[in-house]
């Protein structure tokens, strides 16, 4: 890995898109730093953060050269572009487009994962069972497309790991902690196999980027009590 720090990444420990960016940097051999201290919901509204990142959200990136960027997939794509030999963005324009395609589809599914999580955690209130079920329906629909695509493939695009694999694995892992439980995983076997393959890449394991795949017996429910 290069010794020069390419930039600083603001994220939070539980943020899965942040993990995807870290994994991208690790795979690409790009060294990144983290802020000495960062308290989310506080520091991101302070003037020195807002001047750099006007939307006040994380993940956010500040290059060593002063270049600032926010939005998860754009940051990941940019970091990958700093190491073209990594192959993370494919070998051709078409491969790059397909990588885009799968990431975009996963982001759609992740949107629903997020809404489902907000219902389960009673953040989105009042609760609506019919809209919860609709979100699950849409999320599963997108995950099924990914699952089918992986039935005969190891990687999403081409024959080597790309940014699409990292992004999809990270966000499927997230969903595995929310509503993709044992029963759902059994119906998405190729997606689960793919996720395990990606998360177990030695470079990710060494860097300790991803948490273990959680055991989830049943999809989270707003009616379960939380400590």
């Amino acid at each position, binding site marked *: 890995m290069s010794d020069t720090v390419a930039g600083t990444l603001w994220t939070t420990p539980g943020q899965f898109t942040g993990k995807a960016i870290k994994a991208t940097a690790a795979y690409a051999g790009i060294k990144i730093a983290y802020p000495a201290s960062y308290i989310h919901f506080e520091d991101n509204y302070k003037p020195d953060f807002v001047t750099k990142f006007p939307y006040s959200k994380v993940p956010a990136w500040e290059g060593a050269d002063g270049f600032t960027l926010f939005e998860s997939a754009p940051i990941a794509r*940019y970091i990958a*572009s700093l190491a073209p030999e990594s192959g993370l963005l494919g070998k051709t324009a078409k491969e790059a*487009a*397909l990588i885009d395609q799968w990431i975009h589809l996963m982001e759609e599914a992740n949107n629903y994962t997020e809404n489902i999580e907000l219902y389960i955690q009673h953040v989105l209130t009042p609760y609506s069972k019919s809209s919860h079920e*609709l979100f699950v329906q849409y999320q599963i*629909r997108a995950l099924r497309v990914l699952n089918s695509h992986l039935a005969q493939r190891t990687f999403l695009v081409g024959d080597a790991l790309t940014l699409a694999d990292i992004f999809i694995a990270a966000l499927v892992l997230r969903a595995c902690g929310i509503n993709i439980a044992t029963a759902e995983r059994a119906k998405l076997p190729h997606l689960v196999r793919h996720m395990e393959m990606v998360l177990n890449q030695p470079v990710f394991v060494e860097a300790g980027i991803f948490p273990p795949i959680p055991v989830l017996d049943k999809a989270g429910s707003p009616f379960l009590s939380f400590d």
Partner: protein
Amino acid sequence: MASIGTLWTVPVQVPGKIIRAAAAFGGVTIDLPASYVHFEDNKKPEFLSKFPHGKIPSFEGKNGFKLFESTAIARYVAGLAPNSGLLGKSPEDAALIDQWIHLAESEVDTYTALIRNLVNGNVPGYTKPVHTALLERQLRALSTLEKHISSRTFFVGERITLADIYVAGLVQRALSVNIDKALRPKFPNLIRHTETIINQPAFKGIFEPTPVLETAPVFSPPKKEKEVKPAKPAAPPAPKAEKPKKKEEDDEDDNLVPEEPKVKNPLEDLPKSTLNLEDWKRAYSNKETRGPGGALEWFYENYDKTGFSVWRVDFKYPSELTQIFMSNNQVGGFFNRLEASRKYLFGSVGVLGEANNSLISGALILRGQDAEPVVNVAPDWESYDFKKLDLEKAEDKAFFEGALAWDLEIDGKKWADGKNVSDLPPVLPE
């Protein structure tokens, strides 16, 4: 320039317009389909084998390259014209273009779509607090965009990039959905930018003039008789295509396409009946059940035994039943799960007896002569026995009337509580 391929989209689809504009700007020729009917053609095997997600926009290159997802296509098309500057001149430019597109898509347009679909009832679960929360997020992102463009002509650098086209397209959409006269004054620079972009000569014929929305549509809860329209699997595609333009645009890029095309419901093909079930439900609600001028009298006068049939329904496992209110909830749940068949079904089902010594029984009035097609929308339908009733037989008639009048008695067990299909609350609680 020879066409690079075909873009499946429909004229009103906003991401489709953005891709077409990018192509036009970059001097890239793309074909639109000779004929494409959304909600029909995209469910056919030839479409799905190319584009497994079944959505538009979808792109098929002349050489067979297939791509879906709007931003992926837009970026790919823009990349075919590197001199256009649409993707900037450096990795940093490209990243910033990505950033603004991503922000506009995920933090503005996602909410524009959700607000529209909740307010118009396409997606269930509307409540004012949720609407307000979504609006706040959408406005927050629009404000970030507004601030950035207030001192600039273009989002990245000094020329048009894909970011400008994307932001303009999605802002224009927000302006036609919910950013009304009251909200417009918050975004003068964004509106200036949108108008500049969509009126570029290169984009002639692609974008409509930006409407000025007087007031954002408000949610109105559905009437009890009317069915709320969530994206049900059984919804046939044809009616959606007939709806006004705005709705069509919305459905196409808003992921409201039902997951699997269900086999057409045989109940739709039955010859018209003289009995209107909604009229019956109204009569049942408004009149006393028994007695002269009552609902039963109305029923016998209007019943069409060819078009409808009457059934006895019994829960198969009465020994499982404990508290009356819990069993009653079970009936309510069963009726909830029959929601998709609401227009083919009337029910009056009750819990008879006492705690730990009860049963569930009642009567259904169903469209057609067969119970299964109507009730199998409920996954637990097989927990119940269905027996067709013959109203010419005194015994069956008495049972039917007892169920409707809520005074049914079976084996000494008296009616304790019950449910009617027509007194279900609407799907959207207020």
